[in-house]
């Protein structure tokens, strides 16, 4: 990869955090005048790579090369000097200052040592025109739509840097027309010779705007290729690591006897979050949910549990109509939910393992029937043992446990409430092999005990192994429900990748 002609290059980058290898010997080359999509599931190492390219992190091994010259980027300001600018998903400008000030913040034109406001606004008008924006540079930035703010952020990054533009999920909060407008700007910048890195979870957008694609998985470089000769299925296959060619219809186990329908969602949906879906879940079955990140799988789980309220459709539990507007409603019906982001929404880091396990049960019991310490110890001990939680003491803060043990504790928390229906969002992400096996074993055990489960997972082999049905999500919509011999990674990958009007 040493040939000249790259605007920016990463050579053999390895980044280690503690014991965790976030990036493992990754090469990445960016040509001037190309849009280069960087793809990978969460935890694949995309953001670590970006942070190294922009100087926010230093690589443990390897080198960043700007226009053929090895450079050491100590911080983002230095990266800017080498012409590298970044625009993040959330616009990080100052919404309460004017558009012009945002464009020129830090390098305002001055006269007699004071900001030359008139010149700044004139210059701004010229710059904005280039981006097709006809807005008043003196107006407050926050008064404009997110799309306009995003374009201002891009304009600022290009003005400041001018060679490499890194766009980190710039379209996440834009609607279709706004995305199209953004793409026009991207194509325009590309024709001016800028090298552009584009990170997104939307495959359609990758195919619409990118020339080449680099795919990362678990911190390793999987492939860098031109997009012309790739299909959607190829891309998904590489992202998820499933070799479609070899996975024909797997032998299906005899259909397990299904229990009665426990929960049924009819036309259940929430605007701007997930399209209405229909799904019924039986006692003693696992319904797997597959789909890429951002496909609406987490949103689906959240409205099932009432973490976000559904604004249309209905739900019945054990044949009776139910209303689930908040988690307490769901818990009263015997639901439990392990969220995807364990640290932000799952654990109470400073509280003990014991308290983390009993809290949902205590919440169900209410304020005044408090479990005393001995009862808490007994419950935590019982479920902790069943789940094989490895902790020196149940009284130690849960934040000191490994991710796998934390996940087991959250699962124990719900098992302690004696649930009928569990929703698990990526229960095995980012945990060690032993804990992984324990959780899969528990899912199987609970299913055999007659619980109804919905399990969201990117690990297709795993979902296939324990699910009796698989629901596929794409673009915030439930697009397929797979049964019987269709439950195999190949079919799932096809279903995830397929476009309404089949491409390629």
């Amino acid at each position, binding site marked *: 990869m040493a040939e000249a002609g790259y605007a920016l290059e990463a050579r053999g980058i390895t980044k280690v955090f503690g014991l965790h290898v976030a990036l493992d010997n990754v090469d990445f080359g960016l040509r001037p005048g190309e849009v280069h999509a960087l793809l990978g599931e969460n935890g694949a190492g995309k953001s670590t790579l970006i942070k190294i390219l922009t100087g926010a992190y230093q690589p443990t091994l390897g080198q960043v090369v700007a226009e053929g010259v090895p450079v050491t980027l100590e911080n983002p300001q230095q990266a800017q000097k080498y012409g590298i600018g970044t625009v993040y998903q959330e616009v990080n400008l100052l919404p309460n200052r004017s558009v012009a000030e945002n464009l020129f913040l830090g390098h305002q034109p001055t006269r007699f040592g004071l900001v030359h406001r008139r010149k700044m606004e004139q210059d701004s008008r010229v710059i904005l025109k280039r981006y097709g924006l006809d807005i008043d540079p003196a107006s407050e930035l926050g008064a404009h739509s997110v799309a306009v703010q995003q374009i201002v952020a891009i304009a600022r990054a290009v003005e400041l840097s001018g060679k490499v533009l890194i766009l980190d999920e710039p379209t996440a909060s834009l609607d279709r027309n706004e995305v199209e407008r953004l793409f026009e700007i991207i194509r325009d910048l590309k024709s001016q010779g800028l090298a552009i890195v584009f990170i997104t979870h939307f495959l359609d957008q990758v195919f619409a705007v990118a020339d080449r694609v680099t795919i990362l998985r678990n911190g390793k470089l999987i492939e860098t290729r031109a997009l012309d000769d790739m299909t959607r299925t190829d891309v998904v296959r590489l992202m998820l690591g499933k070799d479609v060619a070899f996975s024909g219809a797997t032998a299906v186990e005899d259909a397990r006897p299904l229990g009665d329908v426990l929960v049924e969602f009819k036309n259940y949906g929430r605007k701007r979050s997930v399209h209405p879906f229909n799904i019924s879940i039986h006692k003693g079955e696992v319904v797997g949910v597959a789909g890429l990140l951002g496909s609406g799988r987490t949103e689906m789980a959240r409205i099932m*549990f009432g*973490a976000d309220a559904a604004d249309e459709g209905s739900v019945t539990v054990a044949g009776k109509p139910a209303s689930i507007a*908040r*988690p*307490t409603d769901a*818990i009263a019906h015997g639901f439990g*939910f392990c*969220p995807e982001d364990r640290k*932000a*929404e*799952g*654990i*109470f*880091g*400073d*509280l*003990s393992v*014991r*308290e983390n396990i009993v*809290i*949902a049960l*205590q*919440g*169900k*019991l*209410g*304020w*005044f*029937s*408090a*479990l005393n*310490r001995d009862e808490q110890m007994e419950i935590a001990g019982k479920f902790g043992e069943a789940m094989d939680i490895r902790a020196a003491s149940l*009284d130690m803060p849960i934040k000191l446990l490994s991710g796998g043990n934390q996940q087991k504790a959250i699962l124990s*928390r719900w098992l302690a409430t004696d649930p009928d229906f569990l929703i698990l969002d990526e229960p095995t992400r980012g945990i060690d092999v032993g804990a992984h096996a324990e959780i899969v074993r528990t899912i199987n055990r609970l299913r055999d005990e007659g619980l109804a489960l919905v399990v969201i997972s990117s690990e297709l082999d795993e979902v296939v192994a324990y699910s009796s049905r698989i629901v596929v999500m794409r673009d915030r919509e439930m697009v397929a429900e797979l049964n019987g011999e269709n439950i195999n990674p190949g079919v799932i990958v096809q279903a995830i990748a397929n476009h309404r009007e089949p491409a390629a």
Partner: protein
Amino acid sequence: MMRRFLSALASPQVIALVGVLLINWLLFPNFFRITWQDGRLFGSVIDVLNRGAPVAILAIGMVGVIATKGVDLSVGAVMAMAGAVAATMVVAGYPAPVAVAAALTVGLLCGLWNGFLVAVLDIQPIVATLVLMVAGRGIAQLITEGFIVTFNDPLLIFIGTGSFLGLPMAAVIAICLLILVTLLVRRTALGLFIEAVGVNRAAASLAGIRSRMLLFLVYGLSGLCAAIAGIIVAGDIRGADANNAGLWLELDAILAVVIGGTSLLGGRFSVPLAVVGAIIIQAMNTGILVSGFPPEFNLIVKAALIFLVLIIQSPMASRLVPTRLMTREGSK
């Protein structure tokens, strides 16, 4: 049970209190002398309890708020309002119990208003309670029409200056509140829920805790405690001074809670240790007064104490000292 009690006695807060008391004793050898006179106890230590009671009562309310990652800046102003309400009502001829009940109701409503701003409108606690901190004193001044309203009602004066079993009434009220609130949070699941909301409100909601109700409750309790403190202070000076009653005491209350080991980032809290924090502050105040130093020293010593606590709680210190001094393991 006994062991846990003993380990609580070994907490850094209690050791610090003993240290401050010993310094007071060195500076003023009569510090621990207690005499019995007219059916009540007298002495510097008793004075510490009496003078420290209002801040201790504020701290009892404040500690729950801070444990939820909040703060209640309005307690000083609520004290002024409660005092003003009680005083003007007895002056207007209402019976003292009615006046006291009205003042407590005002405090509770103020607290619930703060709770509404924080829990429902999702306003940052420091800003939400700033509203009432500013407005409350103004309302108190409107109630008293700008005067210091003095009264002679025996019941109100008894609340401020009376004694029970030889102890000053203010201290007796503080001790009762301490026991009541401690039982309330530790014998029910409230304490666990408050800590859970403070550590991670998103996770708490997903675990089925009604965090809004809980926030209403802690801010309501804080308002109620402030009203009690306000009545005591008014009874003590036999009048309601809208300008000065409770002035800056919210800061002392916050300091007491922080000295008591509750982090301003929420989570683990202890009601008794917050009260110990309040007594430490008062013991320093009294110590400086009785030892003849000019009272201006008070502020500087207090600032030094804040500085010390902040350093002990800083991330740097916890890196240097692996067993963190200011956090206690499992309470109850």
